[in-house]
């Protein structure tokens, strides 16, 4: 009886691990998409509205879901607070510390951090160029992420179940 309970638990845990891993694969392209929406919004704010950066970031944060929204809002608040922090520092700190809570990886992070180094520091045309460049990089990452999703999402799920089943069989 106890053995059976243990087997069920192992099977359940293995399945869950597999599903979580699969969910990360499914989440990544979705979050990159949100990030692209955010940058598109930022592009409009800079290009047409000429909105000051703290306001623009705040508005961006209202338009996208967490956890990205929280990070944009944090940067906007930090710039408004008047602590003398530069955009680059604030951007780097926030995204570096908040990155593990997202499903995204190194490539997206690099593109975003590079954008942070130039944001607010040059004329409009130049800003738009940098934003578009970052968007282009993110789009490539998104395509790769989708490919990964197709390839690994189901695999992860079945691997979880099968791995658990293997353990159960070995235990029996």
């Amino acid at each position, binding site marked *: 009886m106890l053995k059976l309970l243990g087997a069920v638990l192992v099977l359940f845990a293995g399945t869950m691990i597999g599903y979580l891993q699969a969910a990360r694969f499914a989440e990544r392209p979705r979050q990159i998409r949100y990030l692209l929406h955010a940058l598109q919004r930022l592009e409009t704010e*800079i290009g047409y509205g*000429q*909105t*000051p*950066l*703290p306001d*623009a970031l705040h508005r961006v944060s209202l338009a996208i879901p967490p956890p990205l929204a929280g990070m944009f809002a944090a940067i906007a608040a930090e*710039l408004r607070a*008047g*602590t*003398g922090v*530069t*955009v680059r520092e604030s951007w780097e700190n926030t995204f570096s510390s908040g990155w593990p809570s997202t499903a995204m990886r190194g490539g997206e992070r690099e593109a975003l951090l590079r954008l942070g180094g130039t944001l*607010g*520091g*040059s*004329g*409009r045309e*130049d*800003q738009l160029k940098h934003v578009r460049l970052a968007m282009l990089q993110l789009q490539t990452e998104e395509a790769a992420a989708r490919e990964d999703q197709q390839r690994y999402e189901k695999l992860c799920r079945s691997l979880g179940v099968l791995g658990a089943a293997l353990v159960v069989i070995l235990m029996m």
Partner: protein
Amino acid sequence: MPPVLFEWLPYQLRSLLSGLPDAVLETLEEIRIRENRPLEIGYGGRFAFVRGDGSVADDYRAGYKPSREDCKALLEKVTDHSLYAVEEELRRGYVTVAGGHRIGLAGRTVLEGGAVRHLRDVTSFNVRIARARPGCAARLLPALLDKAARTVRHTLIVSPPQQGKTTLLRDLARAVSSGEWNDPSARSWGGRKVGIVDERSEIAACERGVPTFDLGPRTDVLDACPKAEGMMMLVRSMSPEVVVVDEIGRPEDADALREALHAGVRVLATAHASDLSDVFNRPVLALLAREGVFGAYVLLSRAGGRVEHRVYGALEAEEARRRGLRQWAAAPRDAPAPAPAPAASRSAGGALETAIKARPLPPIRSPDRLEGEGEGHA
């Protein structure tokens, strides 16, 4: 002056400057920040350097030298982290921060087709502290009244930079708008509708469109609008009775001024010039003056910490021009304050009075003995 004044400065500079003695803070006029060169301030008509511990020194070698990081952070802060939003201002060499303080910038220009397209490597900042002096126009206003029309005359306020033109203009707008004519015969007039074209956001210091300075109850402000276009927009749409503009001098300004005049609107304007003959030497102003556009000219000058004004009618101005009068050429304004200023300026006033004795309007001047409202405009 409240210490919140410095909230647009980055942390390092703010902590340094808010440590200045109160007497200095109260009369602060300029802060000059230059990369790797001593931090300079102008206050009460003189200049000094700021040491690393927030004290004031006359010797520049003791001054605190702002680093590259300080300057970068300052530029970011005063542009609200958004250079792209102030491109037009950068091209003209200044930005205005909350509170109406204008910050002049110098650095390396980027040209395009021979015209300045952008300013980069900004390493020199000149912060001009804007300050409201309610009541500073009270002495002047009675001399500018047009009693037949029950309003003010077309007036040009003239002085070299940094003598208090904008401060005076701001208070004139406030007084006209709230009806404080300070003249017994004008007691029943009430205020006039005032329209202000605030190209550099200095007069009203608007934040999100709302003036932060008191400009009276009947005032509309067109913020950050080019003067010529703004005057026309106001006349067409806001039906002002008095239009206020700062620093005219371009040909299109003259056209807009004439237009406003013929629309029955009174104009209060300022211009850079050291005296009346300078006015007649500047092409656009000379043309306007010769056409008799302005009904009164006000000359500002500064002796010690005191601002003095002198009013000329159009005829007197013409007369003065013919005589080549150069009474009011200004000394460098932060030269050591001349101690016996009263005697000197009185004799100058005497000479002028004889020169224009027959005219109906006597020159008026803030009395030397009176303290308070008449002195020390920034």
